[in-house]
């Protein structure tokens, strides 16, 4: 059981950054950013390749910059060239496949054998004992979350939020939506790539297919978190994605240890995701049915 909790916490913190990126692009900017899948692998590939070359620390900012570049391409396609936003993400994502292969030296995967990673470096400091991986992943996620929440309170952050909330208003209040969308998508994809970078170094491997479907999982984490923690302020949103991500990983770990065959994993993931997304609708439907039953019963008694 402790092992499940440890794994869930570690993976939950690492993948929470993807959910946080989607919180920014999907929830705040109202753009379904399909760049996410490819961008996650890009971060992973850049990070692992850098670490393999002996620069595990440099790997993290390098991955983030590469992610921001991917976000910039998507933003450029949709703001300057008039490509519809979902299509812009898909186009970038397609192109990223080749870029990712390139980043790993034209190989489909890249492994770290005895090289240092941020995790081995951190373990060497002796902080956290057995919990070092969770501590490091958690620290990265919390710091990133704090930066995001602080940023969203600045003039630029408020402008980005307004861009997703009311385009008409934005145009009438001297905000350039092209600029805010670009900054928002660069930031979101930098976070996605950071997630890939951390995951890559933790698992000591990068694979060209490792990020397939990550956008759906991130979305599920976001919605699970919002269902439990609730929506509202930016701080609440940032906490929600972390909670959602950890919970998702707990469910995932339980499924892995249950008698359900491992081949069914993708199907189970899809069902969990669908249930999480449908939960608010199902809840209000159930509440309405209960109210209706009660009202009808009361009417019958009255007669």
């Amino acid at each position, binding site marked *: 059981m402790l092992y499940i909790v440890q794994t869930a916490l570690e993976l939950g913190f690492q993948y929470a950054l993807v959910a946080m990126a989607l919180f920014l692009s999907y929830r705040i900017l109202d753009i379904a950013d399909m760049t996410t899948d490819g961008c996650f692998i890009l971060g992973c590939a850049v990070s692992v390749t850098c670490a393999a070359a002996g620069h595990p620390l440099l790997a993290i900012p390098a991955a983030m910059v590469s992610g921001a570049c991917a976000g910039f391409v998507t933003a450029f396609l949709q703001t300057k060239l008039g490509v519809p936003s979902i299509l812009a993400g898909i186009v970038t994502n397609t192109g990223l496949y080749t870029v990712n292969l390139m980043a790993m030296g034209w190989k489909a995967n890249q492994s770290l054998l005895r090289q240092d990673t941020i995790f081995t470096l951190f373990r060497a400091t002796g902080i956290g004992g057995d919990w070092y991986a969770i501590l490091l992943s958690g620290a990265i996620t919390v710091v990133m979350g704090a930066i995001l929440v602080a940023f969203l*309170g600045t003039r630029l952050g*408020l402008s980005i*939020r*307004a861009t997703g*909330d009311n385009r008409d208003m*934005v145009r*009438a209040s*001297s905000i350039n939506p092209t600029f805010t969308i670009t900054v928002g998508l660069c930031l979101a994809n930098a976070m996605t790539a950071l997630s890939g970078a951390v995951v890559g170094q933790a698992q000591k491997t990068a694979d060209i297919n490792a990020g397939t479907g990550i956008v759906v999982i991130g979305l599920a984490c976001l919605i699970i978190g919002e269902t439990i923690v609730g929506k509202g302020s930016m701080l609440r949103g940032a906490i929600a994605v972390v909670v959602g991500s950890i919970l998702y990983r707990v469910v995932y770990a339980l499924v892995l240890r249950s008698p359900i065959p491992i081949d069914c994993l993708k199907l189970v993931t899809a069902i969990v995701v669908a249930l999480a997304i449908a939960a608010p609708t199902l809840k209000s439907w159930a509440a309405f049915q209960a109210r209706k039953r009660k009202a009808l019963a009361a009417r019958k008694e009255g007669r």
Partner: protein
Amino acid sequence: MLEIKQISKTFNPGTVNEKSALSGLSLTLADGDFATIVGSNGAGKSTLFNAIAGDFYVDEGSIFLSGDDLTYLPAYRRSRRIGRLFQDPMRGTAPHMTIEENLALAYLRTAKHQKAFFSRVSKADKAFFREQLARLDMGLEDRMRQPVGLLSGGQRQALTLLMATMVPPKLLLLDEHTAALDPGTADKVLKLTREIVEGEGITCLMITHNMKNALELGNRTLMMDNGRIVLDIGGEERKGLTVDDLLSRFRAGAGKALDNDRILLS
């Protein structure tokens, strides 16, 4: 000072839907002028506002505001100097952001903050917002942390008016901003508009379908027809003018009666 020289705009040129929305329109507003605009449906009133605000670029002519050429500036750059309210109260505010955040957004766009992307609102700014909200007399100063989506249409429109004028713009465009409100609220917002516009001496253009308001508010009344200004009444001539006078003057100017099912003659 607003100077519009001979602007023209044709939509869908060369197709069956070709529509000349503005044809050689010229207009000069002195600083502090408050002009009301009336006209039939499709006369080009809103198109004129869209041209000034930069929703599209005009085909011909030029637009100057305080000596600066706006003709080819994109909308977001013009809106640093131009405040605008629409008929739909939902268009002027961000519903999921709090009252305070909406005000901050409007406040932080001012010149001194223009390059300061990471500036935040200070305690002093918040006190200033509170004071400004109190002027609306709607109790909004005690609800600053609530999302704007919870406010009524009238409250949202009043808030938009405050956001547009908190830092006085060079020009304020009001596009029937009270038409979607109930009569009581509309009166209140109109009273507030007059207080703010006349109090701060803001140069203002206001489209209205209420002929009485068109004559009572401001110091000039313009009538539009077919993408042109056909009547411009100000000064002594405007005082003592009745709604009937205005309608007959319009008939003389445009060569036809004013047909508008929404015009209120009361």
